């Protein structure tokens, strides 16, 4: 395996590769957004936000590889951190909301209108 690693090492990235990764990231983001805007189940909505995080992860690492700057990957660590924290709190809130209305439907919370 190290030989393979050696080979892989020190090879510059091609533009088309970067473009591919970024486009994929964008598509994943769009799909995640579509899911967030469409689904009514609170938990699934948050799951879609996690999907958007994934897209971000791919984009960061791809750009970091392009410039050979590892701060891209470092930032991904922080993304993971925040995602975890957010997931924990979001789910706690969802549980509370669920306890109040007895349902996970996002449509029951519509008090911000006239």
């Amino acid at each position, binding site marked *: 395996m190290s030989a393979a690693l050696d080979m892989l090492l020190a090879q510059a990235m091609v533009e088309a590769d970067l473009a591919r990764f970024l486009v994929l990231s964008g598509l994943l983001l769009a799909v995640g*957004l579509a899911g*967030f*805007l*469409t689904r*009514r189940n609170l938990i699934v*909505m948050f799951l879609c936000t996690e999907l958007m995080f994934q897209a971000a992860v791919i984009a960061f690492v791809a750009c970091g590889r392009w410039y050979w700057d590892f701060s891209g990957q470092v930032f991904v660590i922080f993304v993971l951190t925040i995602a975890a924290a957010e997931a924990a709190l979001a789910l706690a809130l969802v549980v509370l909301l669920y306890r109040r209305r007895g349902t996970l439907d*996002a*449509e029951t*919370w*519509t*008090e*911000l*209108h*006239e």
Partner: protein
Amino acid sequence: MPALSMLTKVAQASPPVPVGDVHVLPDLSWAGLILWLPLLSLALCGLCAAFKCRTKLPAWITVASLAGSFVTALWLYLNYEPPGDVIMIAQWINLSWVGGGFDANISFYVDSLSLLWILFVTGLGTLIAFYASEYMEPDLGKGYCRFFAGVSVFLFAMSALVLADNLLLLYLGWEGVGFASYWLIGYYYTKPEAVAAAKKAFIVNRIGDLGLALAIYLCWTSFGTVQYDELMTAIEAGQYQVMTEDWFVAAIPWLLMLAAFGKSAQLPLYVWLPDAMEGPTPVSALIHAATMVTAGVYLLARLYPMFLLGDDHLALHVVAWVGGLTALLAATIGMAQYDIKRIMAYSTVSQLGFMFMGIGLLTTYGAAYHVFTHAFFKAVLFLTCGAIMHGFAGQLDLRKLSGLRKIKGWKITCYAMLIGCLCLAGFPFTSGYFSKDAILVEAFVTQGPGFEVLGWIALFTAGLTAYYTFRVWFRVCAGPVQFEPGDDHHGDDHGHDDGQFQPHAPRFAMNSVMAIIAVGALAAAIPYFMDSGVKGGWIADMVNDSTAADGIPAVRAAAHTGHDHSGHHGSLLGMDPHVAMYYLSGAVGFIGIVIAAWLHLFRREDADALRRALLRRPAIAWLPRAMEHKWYVDEFYHATLRAPLWVASHVLHGFDRIVIDMILVGGIAQLPRGVARWMQPLVTGSVQSSAVAMAGGAVLLIFVVLLFMQYGVLN
């Protein structure tokens, strides 16, 4: 007296600052009392109203302050030395900039013309205020205070007008008297006719005021100053800068004429004066007979040199003719009216016409003398009419009053009225005789377009005047005793026991004032005989010493050679005009009185029969009908001015209401509402719809930026 002489010595001791021909003596600022005393009385009357005073205190305050003004005016006169002083009272407007400046202070231009005016204004003002203290008794309380406050304002403004040193202060006084007149005409503000009359007076006056304002602007533009002393100097030296247009200077006399016609009720702006009789009678006596209406004459006299600029005195000719025609017109209307106050009002218009005729005929002396005498006898006529109105509960119809002379307590009233009527008719050797003479003579002496015809017209009018004046007297004061009460029952009945009306005779205040003024009317003939170099006595002295006479060729010649040149050209009926006029006017007056006596004293039924006969013949029926309807002038104004304005105002009101309010303002207000309603479905309250909107907006923004970048706008 020693204090007075000491004061004058002090005044003379301070070094005068020569401005042209005039000395400025600041120490005579006591003269400011003439202005400040009426203001003080205004403030005190206001306090009386605030404290709900129900006594005659406001009257005494006003009488006292006006008497103080009169005394101060007298003192000024005693210290007067020709050619005249400018007394600075207070600083007002002093502006200066590069290349020019504007000065208008509260200062008095004390020459003989203004002294003449201020003496009779304050004198009559005091007396009439005293009269009003009794006349206005039924209104004791707030109305009483209001009345005397109005009188004080009027006297303040009139004094400012007469004594002003500059056109701006004159304008202040001019507007002030207009305002006071409006306030006092509308005194009985619950009567719609009174309110309408007040508005009419003010609005018609305003037309004149426009003329005065424009004249002042043009004066300043052409002469660079609005102060009399500088103005006269500039005119005399012929140094006036023509800033922009040549016709500016020529326009000034015409504008002044407009102003004078408005204020002094000449054709075509006289329509307000008869209606102004809705005000209380002391107001009519003071303002609309003796003082305010003479302000127009004063204006023209004061600014006389302006009219004499240039060689053709076209403005003066117009003034003369307008005056003459107004006199004739008003006299014809007065002949056909039944309300005695209205008749007196028309006679005022007519006599003012005479005064303007005098101005136009180059005899400011005649005009001023007539003003002086007219003030007295017209005041007394109005005061007696007022006494009648006061005593007979508002009855003014001469068909319903008769033989008052024989009623107990009315003798003074009737004989005072007789004196007034004699003066007005120009009965020989009364003051009115001499003053009217002075004017009529000039018509045959001065050269001008058709002045001889004018003279005959004026003579005819004098006859008419005598007729209608004595019509009033013979009907009201002579003949069998008959009366009917009028409609004003002011509160408690003046003795209404068993349904019989008892007239309320005037008491001390009213009687004394009527007597004093009647005596004054007779005494006004005396100055004619007072010794002086110029024919016409003391009045002529006063007038010819002032700016009113500058420029009159005859007077100038007299000043140069020292003896009087007047009256040697022109002839009347083959004789020297003065002599001829003595006889002619006396004869005309006499004829008028005789006809009046025949138709209204001895054979009253004949008067009614004559009228009916005239009305029956269609060929001449229009004449009496037109006269009775005041020649339909008011109707003419209504049709040409008021009705179109009324229509225009309604159209504009509709436009304002519909187009501006409903369509523009309302429509624009509807716009946000519509937009909001259109966008309301977006706000559902669900989180996801908000998220959709947010995301959509963000994406749209990125899209737009992308487009910009792509097409190189931002790059």
